[in-house]
């Protein structure tokens, strides 16, 4: 189980897992033995709403950094998610077809999207945000939205 940083804004609490890196838009990347696992942050899933459908690029697809890795359709919006790294999709989460609500229920665990074989992880990880920096981004974005009428 990862440890979390947390911030409470208005009636919401957002958690940031401290064992991975993040894009500004809220896609996380975690280096593991068999590749880099990616998924949505708690903030991004809460902001997007209950997820109805997820479509992840198929195994074997080659992605450039920021190229679309998945689309999610929620009760509020349709979101295109950019890949946090370049590489080949090595595995996708089968639960995304049968139980996409796992993203809402366990965004840092069972609700992962895919595992990518990185083509240049050392470069890509340098442009991602560490947990503290991403927490600051969450505070900024959530604070701005909370103050809007």
């Amino acid at each position, binding site marked *: 189980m990862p440890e979390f940083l947390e911030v409470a804004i208005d009636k919401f609490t957002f958690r940031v897992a401290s064992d991975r890196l993040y894009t500004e838009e809220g896609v996380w990347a975690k280096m593991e033995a068999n590749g880099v696992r990616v998924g949505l942050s708690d903030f991004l899933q809460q902001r997007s709403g*209950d997820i*109805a*459908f997820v479509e992840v690029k198929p195994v074997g697809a080659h992605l450039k950094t920021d190229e679309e890795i998945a689309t999610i359709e929620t*009760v509020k919006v349709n979101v295109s998610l950019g890949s946090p790294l370049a590489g080949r999709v090595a595995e996708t989460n089968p639960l995304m077809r049968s139980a996409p*609500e796992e993203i809402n229920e366990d965004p840092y665990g069972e609700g992962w999207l895919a595992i990518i074989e990185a083509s240049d992880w050392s470069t890509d990880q340098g442009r991602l945000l560490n947990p503290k920096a991403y927490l600051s981004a969450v505070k900024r974005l959530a604070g701005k939205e909370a103050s809007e009428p």
Partner: protein
Amino acid sequence: MSKAKPKVVIVPCSGIGKPYGTVSREAAYIVTEELRPDQTQLVPLSLLVLGDAHARAAITENVAVTINGCKLACSTKMVQESGGTISEDVSVLDVFRQHRELKPLGIAVLNSEGLKLASVIGEDIARRVDELMADAADSSRPRKGASKHA
């Protein structure tokens, strides 16, 4: 005086300002006003929240079908807190997942897809109501060979 005939109580979520909440209410109206008006009773969630005695009585004296527009499941939680028995817990989102073409949009006025989704849910619930009423009739019918006297 004869005892009131049991009904199935339908409790949609409030979901004000959200299309899926509006779908839950439209589905409840379809069941209680069009499909099974004599077998069902609509109980507004707001009355349960306020602790209205008649609403609570309807919940405790009948089985309930709850309809929720989001995972907060307010109608389910409120019926449980009011001491009710839920025979069917319907999630609008789960039904939408089976009918992707019926994406509900609009809040005060649903789009045609949202209205169709509400109809699908309403028809599912009407079938469930029929089952519940048949079960109730079976359980109240004297068994063959049973005696009135012990």
